[in-house]
């Protein structure tokens, strides 16, 4: 094949990745937009190891090569992830786009990555030399900057399922389909017997990297709902300080206002 490699096993793919300066091709839906084709592609679409979806206890292991459609059609995919995936682009793009590619693109607008952030998921990175498992928050170093070595491939996303059932998800886009998030919010809150057992929030499309601040959410964890209500203005103020939107297609002021409204709606949804 000219300008391309088409491995059929992960081992083979990692060997090529280690030896040649190839560009990993997962779904192609971001890669192919560039007008100029440079370099050689390492096609990852026929590697069975990257297509696996396995539940192990409270962790859902999803191969990085799983397309959005494959995950939407899989019975183990949790409702929150399903909701976010269903709003990505349109069917033809969901049929090719993958979670690994969504992450590898390094964008804070990646709608599946937002769910992985709020759930404190990890990514498995493999090379011929071995493997690393990194919390997704540590994997993102900045806009389009990932802690990924040139010999590594993202092979799996490890999604903890424990707190995912009780959530709020909001995507703000300019239209219903084919919309790039202007602000996306995901929040998890579990309240039992009036006590907040878990609270996790994340924002996509606001800054260079998806915003996830467990230090702020910690203000509410372990508190009774009434206590949390008393702390609410303090929590919102802390978040207001933490959010510094980049100026993009829409103004930073608009995005920040939307962010805080979404956070307020999330708290209200759970009685806070």
């Amino acid at each position, binding site marked *: 094949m000219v300008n391309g490699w088409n491995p059929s096993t992960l081992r083979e793919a990692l060997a090529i990745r280690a030896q040649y300066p190839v560009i990993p091709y997962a779904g192609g839906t971001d890669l192919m*937009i560039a007008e100029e084709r440079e370099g050689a592609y390492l096609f990852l679409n026929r590697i069975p190891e990257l297509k696996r979806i396995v539940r192990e206890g409270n962790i859902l292991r999803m191969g990085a090569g799983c397309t959005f459609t494959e995950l939407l059609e899989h019975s183990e995919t949790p409702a929150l992830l399903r909701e976010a995936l269903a709003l990505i682009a349109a069917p*033809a793009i969901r049929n090719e786009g993958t979670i690994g590619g969504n992450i590898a693109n390094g964008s804070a607008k990646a709608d599946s990555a937002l769910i992985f952030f709020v759930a404190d998921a990890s990514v498995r990175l493999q090379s011929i030399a071995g493997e690393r498992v990194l919390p997704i928050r540590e994997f993102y170093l900045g806009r389009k900057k990932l802690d990924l070595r040139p010999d590594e491939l993202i092979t799996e996303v490890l999604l903890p399922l424990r707190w995912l059932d009780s959530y709020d998800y909001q995507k703000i886009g300019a239209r219903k389909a*084919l919309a790039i998030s202007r602000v996306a919010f995901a929040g998890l809150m579990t309240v039992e017997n009036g006590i907040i057992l878990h609270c996790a929030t994340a924002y996509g499309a606001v800054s260079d990297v998806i915003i996830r601040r467990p230090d702020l959410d910690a203000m509410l964890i372990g508190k009774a709902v009434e206590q949390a209500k008393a702390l609410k203005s303090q929590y919102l103020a802390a978040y207001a300080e933490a959010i510094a939107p980049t100026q993009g297609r829409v103004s930073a002021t608009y995005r920040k206002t939307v962010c805080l409204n979404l956070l307020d709606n999330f708290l209200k949804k759970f009685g806070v």
Partner: protein
Amino acid sequence: MTNGIEFTLNGTAVVFEGSATARLLDVLRDTYGLTGVKCGCKEGECGACSILLDGRLVNSCMVAMGRVAGCDVVTIEGYAKTERFKTLDAAYAAVSAAQCGFCIPGMVLASECILAKNPNPTEEEIRDGISGNLCRCTGYNAIVKAIQIAAKEGAGLW
């Protein structure tokens, strides 16, 4: 043993000898002369270049040739030979769902995928199914109607 990319194109086995990074859209139009595959935006926004890749709808502008090795590619030219197409064709005509026609090859293939997934789709499922295919002439109501007619008339085909 060949260095080319082997795949099935509208039912015929072919070997593409060019670059694995070439766009499927360009190769379908320029190498194979399949100009029913339209080029609208080259960034996945319009769906005019939609084709069936192993039975699933994809934008051929966002697919590199290396991706299709060993796969089954169907364009509107191949699909037009099927009974299902005849039903969709008649349904689109019945409600004048086509005007300039530029979106229609993609729209028809999107219609096929909607009906293949669910032979009796709800209006919401139809609208979601064509949500990546833009039409700037008739708008969507006539197209939605055409798919509903095809579902009814083509009972048993899907």
